[in-house]
């Protein structure tokens, strides 16, 4: 009996001391949809792939943890995190005040931005060298936007000079841009690339603005979600994300799917 106890105590001591030092002892379970290309999806070989997956792997490598991916439907993502079905959410989840009440987030690994798309070589001179819009040059320009989006808020408040045309769908936005009914549109650059610029219809068009990153309108961005009260883990995640940003890894991950960085 005494012997057993000693052995157990020894084991506990070994675990307690040894675990943090052996990298493979920690396993982080990561929730994602696994159906949200190009961010998290199963590729042709059935392997999980995408920007979120690369970020998760990059972070895990740096903090020395093993990963276990859990596929979870979107509407159950936060409940599953809170119910301890997994430890992290790396699923392109935007950081919002509402979510912050229930859970915690790392720093962003993807930003929420808007970007203008217009005809190539149209000679628009809309932004100064600092990336700020030049309001007078927007006067009379027809800008297509989706109704009641953050982009229409931004235009209404920042560039009332522009002639805004409101659409009900993203597709109609591209259609009328091609038809020449609008001079440019503002939308999410990733969406624009995947659905329009990267396709035949979008051949004659390009981004005519820098990425417009106004947190007041477009939100903070996408972060890694975790349960509250894990400040040590959060600090390690943030450290790893900073390294991935600084060493160009995040950009490299993005360039696999987009011709521009998204962090």
């Amino acid at each position, binding site marked *: 009996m005494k012997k057993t106890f000693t052995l157990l105590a020894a084991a506990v001591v070994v675990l307690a001391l040894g675990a943090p030092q052996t990298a493979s002892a920690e396993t982080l379970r990561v929730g994602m949809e696994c159906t949200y290309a190009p961010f998290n999806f199963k590729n042709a070989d059935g392997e999980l792939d995408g920007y979120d997956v690369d970020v998760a792997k990059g972070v895990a490598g740096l903090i020395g943890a093993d990963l276990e991916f859990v596929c979870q439907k979107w509407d159950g993502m936060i409940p599953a995190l809170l119910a301890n079905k997994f430890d992290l959410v790396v699923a392109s989840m935007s950081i919002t005040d509402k979510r912050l009440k229930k859970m915690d987030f790392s720093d962003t690994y993807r930003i929420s931005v808007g970007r203008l798309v217009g005809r190539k070589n149209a000679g628009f001179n809309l932004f100064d060298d600092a990336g700020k819009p030049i309001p007078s040059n927007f006067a009379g320009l027809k800008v297509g936007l989706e*109704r*009641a989006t953050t982009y229409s808020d931004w235009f209404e408040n920042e560039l009332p000079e522009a002639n805004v*045309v*409101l*659409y*009900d769908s993203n597709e*109609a936005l591209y*259609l*009328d841009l091609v*038809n*020449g*009914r609008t001079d440019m549109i503002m939308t999410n650059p990733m969406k624009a690339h995947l659905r329009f610029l990267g396709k035949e219809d979008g051949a004659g068009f390009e981004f005519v603005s820098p990425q417009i990153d106004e947190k007041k309108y477009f939100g903070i961005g996408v972060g890694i979600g975790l349960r509250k009260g894990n400040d040590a883990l959060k600090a390690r995640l943030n450290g790893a994300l900073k390294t991935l940003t600084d060493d160009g890894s995040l950009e490299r991950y993005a360039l696999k799917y987009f011709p521009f960085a998204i962090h």
Partner: protein
Amino acid sequence: MSSNFFDFIDFQLILESIPDMLKGIGLTLELLFLSGILGLALAIVLLLMRISGRWYLAAPTMVYIYIFRGTPILVQIFIIYHGLPQLDFVRESIFWPIFKEPYGCAIVALTLNTGAYVSEILRGGVLGVSRGLKEAGAALGLSIRHRFIYITAPIAIRLCLPAYSNDVISLMKSTALVSTITLLDMMGIARTIVAETYAPYEVFISLMVIYLILTWMMQRTFGWAEKRMSRHVRSEA
């Protein structure tokens, strides 16, 4: 019980959104009058072709009317707005400045649609004029043209007026569909407010009230016109 309803409805929002929506009433009325007048002109041309007695004029008219009465006006608006620009020759034609603008597309679609309906209403009126009157005109030696202008037309107009007023009201309601092609008529403004406030009841109920007032005014106007045009009937009675 009723307090639930009043707690539920945001009166503040109603008061705020009505002035916003009224900014679109000019566009609604513009679309109504312009396409109403153009549609009436189109309807008269269609009517004359239809009753000309020449098959090569009547047949295309019947096909036209069948198509425009037989399909939803929303489909017609979408075909004109989204469909036509897909054709290169439309984009290169002299009509492109009209079709490029959602306003132009809206006027064209509403005019073509109402023209088809109104021409059938007018035909009903013309057919309703009793043969005896026309024969009496012929006996007096009036030419076919004169008989049409002085006998058939005035009676036919009076006969069509109730049905025509219906169609004008229906055209007014159809103008709300232009909000689907980016125009900010009252409906377009209402939809934007709803998308921003997530308060469909308050906004759409207010919009209904505005439309109802417009309809009431139109009914009164046509009612007055009908009364005036049939005053000979009353004085005889």
